[in-house]
């Protein structure tokens, strides 16, 4: 699977199991809300940036994680500035940036396929509540298989509609795509059953 925001590097963070990374993110993210002080928060933010160095993620990619929502940081900062003070505003914003960077770091250092494997290994208990984990696995795999197929069919249909000047019409594109892929889905379901799927 090459699809994804994953950045391939050799690093200890890349080698960490996906599940541990997510667990640390959840615990660490929650802990961030208990930090009361600007200075400590800035130290944490600096440590997060060091983690990007450890993971050998280029600075440009790190900045790109934050850039699309810089305006929100500005908004938050200004708003907190009016209601509280500079120190508090600075803390809220640096906490948010740290949180966002940590979350992105997990995504940048873990291939989607590894993340999905980690999910599949941890859903065995769902059998207890009447959910068959094998069916969840099949759904995940099928979605990954369908994404490029549906994208290809969509571009084929748009091509065909271009001849009629309808390539930008959502209905003229979506409707044939949906009908075609629903028929495909019936065949796929048949093919799965034909190969003896019996979870």
């Amino acid at each position, binding site marked *: 699977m090459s699809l994804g925001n994953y950045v391939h590097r050799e690093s200890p963070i890349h080698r960490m199991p996906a599940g541990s990374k997510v667990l640390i993110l959840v615990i660490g993210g929650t802990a961030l809300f208990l930090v009361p002080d600007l200075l400590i928060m800035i130290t944490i933010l600096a440590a997060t940036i060091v983690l990007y160095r450890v993971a050998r993620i280029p600075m440009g990619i790190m900045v790109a994680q934050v850039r699309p929502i810089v305006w929100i940081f500005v908004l938050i900062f200004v708003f907190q500035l009016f209601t509280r003070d500079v120190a508090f505003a600075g803390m809220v914003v640096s906490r948010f940036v740290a949180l966002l960077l940590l979350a992105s770091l997990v995504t940048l250092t873990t291939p989607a396929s590894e993340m999905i494997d980690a999910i599949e290994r941890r859903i065995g208990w769902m059998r207890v509540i009447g959910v068959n984990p094998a069916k969840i696995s099949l759904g995940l795999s099928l979605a990954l*298989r369908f994404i490029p197929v549906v994208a290809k069919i969509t571009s084929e249909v748009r091509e065909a509609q271009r001849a009629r000047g309808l390539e930008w019409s959502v209905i003229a594109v979506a409707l044939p795509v949906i009908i075609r892929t629903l028929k*495909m889905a019936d*065949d*796929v379901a048949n093919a799965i059953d034909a*190969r003896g*799927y*019996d979870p």
Partner: protein
Amino acid sequence: MIEIRNVSLNYDSLSVLRDVSLTLSEKRIAIVGSNGSGKSSFARLLNGLQLPTEGTVVVDGFDTKKDGKQIRKRVGFVFQNPDNQIVFPVVDEDLAFGLKNLKLPPEVIEQKVTEALSRYDLLAFRKHASHHLSGGQKQLIAISGVLAMEPRYVVLDEPTTLLDLRNKRRIAEVIDSLEQTAIVVSHDLDFLRNFDRVIVFEDCRVVIDDTPSTALARYVERLS
């Protein structure tokens, strides 16, 4: 041996097959007919994907209505469009799928996947994304996925319709060299010439059932 006994098939009020009885025991059997003649539905009866409205389909003594599991083990099915048959995003995952359904241990699955891929020189594609393969490669992967399960019969529904000439020939060779009994639905009359038996469907019935040379000559005559 596959026995079709007085089978009729209806979708709602539409009749697809009417009182068809056949015994299939030859090694290479072709099913021919125009679109809508019922030949694809007939193919789907053979592995229980479609159950007859009336009558029975019996494979080696197993009734498709009662012994679905046994039937699927015995009768492999290759679809017209390999895109719809390849279920998994990576080639080896797809081949392993049917074997997992047979509840084989992982090391046996691993070995059988390797065997299946090497049969048609596809080992290099083991870790490839399925959607990056060409049409001919996809059809070979689809066939390999079915053969890996070691069925006794393989039903192929228009396996060459979507392929170019070179890949048509390749798939024809592959079918030719199968150890299994092959039942092939096809429009491609040329590659049916060295089959054992050709059955022609028209208007929900069998109208011709003969050796290829006779059957194909009569079929072409009927069409003109």
